[in-house]
């Protein structure tokens, strides 16, 4: 990383009401992996959009290889050797891989030549991909490969990656990192945006930290601890969730020999799952994505029903009850997919709050909605969970992912559940907010609620759960006390080796 590839000087961009970026300057060297860190809403996306020509800066300039660089549109940026992999993939489901890639190129070759090139590049970077497959049928990791290969075929000097690992399984993350290191070895520069501090420490040479639109520091992430990085992002030290000793009550929720066939060809069948959760206990369930997490949440929330005796709540068999009845009993849930599952994107936060809280918070009377009360409840959630939104009337879909996540989790926590099941509660949420959500879950446990946390973030599970189990191909391992487990044992459990451990249970 000798010379400077891209230099940003005093970039400022203001939108009505907010300053997205203020006087941001830093350099990206040749062959450097540069991390851009910041909380949700710190201005990372706006900054990369300026580099990629989607947004014009109000003041400030950029120089690329020493010459002034001011792209008026993405096309111009691409022509200058800047390529970008988007957080929400900009792919076309109905088109095949080669067509998708051709769309992102200025002068694509003939389809047959392009297909050959794709195969060649995908093999040399260890990213296997069939150019004739329709994109709609690909996994998240494969879709990302399409985007990356689209970028690589342009032979870029700088590759921008916006939260590339948020949708990947750990194996896919490994493959991605290998590819990125290979690119770095070839002298290409990478601007890497992520929340995941451990990833940044492992991968990046330098990190620029943004807070409220301003640059606060540039540092070497490998030399700082994850906690120091997180504190620089937030601007103050924040409290890590505190696990206080709790008295465990009686068994609140029991799952007995639960088997459930997958709803469709892409799902995972659950196979004879057994576990129980006591009042005041946090059970953490880990595992690689797609091993039955969504299905487990569905059968617990009531979206999928099972045989009556398979799910027992407080001594009552409830396997055949639907979500509304379970909610009335006090079993609440927060699914993984924020938009479309946990929240309706085009409806306001008040309306979204009303949808799960209408009964437990008595927001309706004689079939008529009490809008005033619903709004007060939504505002209570917004205050308690520091959801950054203009008002409770804002459509859910216009909030940033992390803010919406705080809202949908807060909405359930504030309803005083007796059992709370959450899947990926802190997905896409910055470190401080994630700590707040975890603290809220622990507080809830202190009030004698039973909590089931399904997550792919192992650190999170180790931090808050009392007992830990892993899902593998729809089977749940024996739950074991988290404090007794080493990372190696957890890895084995996730790999499905639960028979090897004749455990203490």
């Amino acid at each position: 990383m000798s010379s400077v590839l891209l230099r940003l000087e005093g970039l400022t961009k203001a939108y009505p009401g907010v300053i997205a970026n203020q006087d941001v300057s830093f350099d990206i060297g040749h062959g450097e992996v540069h991390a851009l860190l910041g909380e949700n809403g710190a201005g990372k996306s706006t900054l990369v959009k300026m580099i990629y020509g989607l947004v014009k800066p109000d003041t400030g300039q950029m120089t690329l290889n020493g010459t002034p660089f001011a792209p008026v549109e993405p096309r111009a940026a691409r022509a200058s050797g800047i390529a970008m992999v988007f957080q929400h993939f900009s792919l076309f489901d109905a088109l095949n891989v080669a067509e998708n890639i051709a769309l992102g190129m200025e002068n694509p070759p003939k389809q047959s030549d392009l297909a050959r090139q794709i195969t060649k590049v995908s093999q040399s970077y260890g990213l296997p991909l069939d150019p004739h497959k329709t994109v709609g049928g690909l996994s998240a990791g494969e879709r990302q490969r399409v985007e990356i290969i689209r970028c690589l075929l342009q032979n870029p000097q700088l590759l921008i990656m916006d939260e590339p690992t948020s949708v990947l399984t750990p194996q896919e993350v490994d493959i991605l990192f290998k590819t990125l290191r290979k690119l770095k070895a070839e002298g290409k520069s990478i601007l890497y945006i992520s929340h995941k501090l451990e990833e940044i420490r492992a991968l990046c040479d330098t990190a620029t930290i943004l807070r409220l639109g301003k640059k606060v520091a540039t540092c070497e992430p490998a030399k700082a601890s994850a906690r120091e990085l997180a504190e620089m992002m937030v601007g103050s030290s924040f409290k890590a969730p505190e696990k206080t000793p709790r008295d465990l009550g009686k068994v609140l929720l029991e799952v007995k020999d639960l088997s459930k066939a997958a709803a469709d060809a892409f799902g995972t069948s659950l196979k004879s799952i057994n576990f129980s959760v006591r009042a005041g206990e946090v059970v953490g369930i880990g595992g690689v994505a797609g091993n039955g997490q969504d299905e487990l949440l569905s059968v617990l929330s009531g979206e999928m029903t099972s045989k009556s005796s398979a799910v027992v709540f407080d001594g009552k068999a409830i396997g055949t009850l639907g979500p509304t009845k379970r909610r009335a009993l006090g079993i609440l849930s927060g699914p993984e997919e924020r938009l479309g599952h946990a929240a309706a994107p085009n409806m306001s936060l008040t309306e979204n709050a009303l949808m799960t809280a209408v009964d437990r918070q008595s927001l309706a009377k004689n079939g008529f909605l009490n809008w005033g009360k619903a709004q007060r409840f939504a505002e209570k959630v917004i205050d308690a969970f520091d959801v950054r939104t203009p008002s409770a009337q804002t459509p859910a879909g216009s909030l940033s992912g992390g803010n919406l996540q705080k809202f949908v989790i807060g909405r359930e926590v504030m309803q005083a559940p007796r059992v709370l099941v959450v899947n990926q509660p802190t997905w896409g949420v910055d470190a401080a907010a994630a700590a707040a959500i975890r603290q809220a879950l622990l507080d809830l446990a202190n009030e004698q609620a039973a909590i089931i946390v399904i997550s792919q973030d192992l650190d999170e599970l180790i931090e808050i759960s009392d007992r830990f189990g892993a899902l593998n191909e729809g089977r749940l391992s024996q739950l074991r006390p988290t404090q007794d487990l080493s990372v190696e044992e957890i890895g084995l459990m996730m790999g499905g080796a639960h028979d090897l451990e004749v455990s203490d249970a």
Partner: protein
Amino acid sequence: MDLSSINPVLLIASLMVSATPIMLAAIGETIVEKAGVLNLGVEGMMITGAVVGFVVGINTGSPMLGFLAAAVASAILSISFGFLTLYLLSNQVATGLGLTLVGLGLSALIGKPYEGMKSTTLDPIEIPILSDIPIVGKMLFAHDPMVYFSIILVGAVWAFLKYSRAGLVLRAVGENHNAAHALGYKVVRIRMLAIMFGGACSGLGGAYISLVRVPQWTEGMTAGAGWIALAIVVFASWKPWRILLGAYLFGGVTVLQLNLQAAGVAIPVEYLSMSPYLITIIVLVFISALGNQGAPASLGRSFHAST
């Protein structure tokens, strides 16, 4: 009842004529919908094309100029739809229905002085050599130029969508307009061009009814052809050759049932009259049930660039 009065050569020849207006309108609408815009104003654009084509044809004495004027007039009408839906972000369904109502009213106003007149029509072109083939020659190769043009247009649209870069971009815009925008494609401009193409095709289809098929002007003479064209686009799964199939099927059954009526078949006229609609839709439902619907994912959704 005398079925021998039905001449198969004439039947095929007249089904091609009968199907041409619907096919023209449907192939235009295919491009519009592939770009992600649902324009329900096809009927209104067809009838506008019919009246403008007839008026210009009768005043200039040239049906070709009539067709040209019809295409231009309907394209201009479709620009109003494009302006409302693409720039003012009005609802596409409501705006399209409005366009149909406007077209029906406007055409009645323009056409009033021309009712009962008769225009010159297109002369058939007998393709040398091919038209001399016994039976088949008269059946397929002795039509007016618009019939050939419509078939060539279907082939051109198919090739455009499948092989050209512009066709790929158009499909991409209809599939995911946000992603297309992020890649730097001009979503609004591409959609506007698609809407104008659809308008021009509808206008040609309408003018074909008033200048060739009938050929005179009566109020509301398209009689739902635009709606059938819209239905064919969907049931043909947005595939050009299936649109040709659907349009010819509809035209064929229409001509056949007229012949059967004339031959005095003992089926109530009402059933015969509804048969083209029923049979076309049933057949195309079966074809589309074979899978691969291919509806553009952004169809009918307004696009607003929010950078």
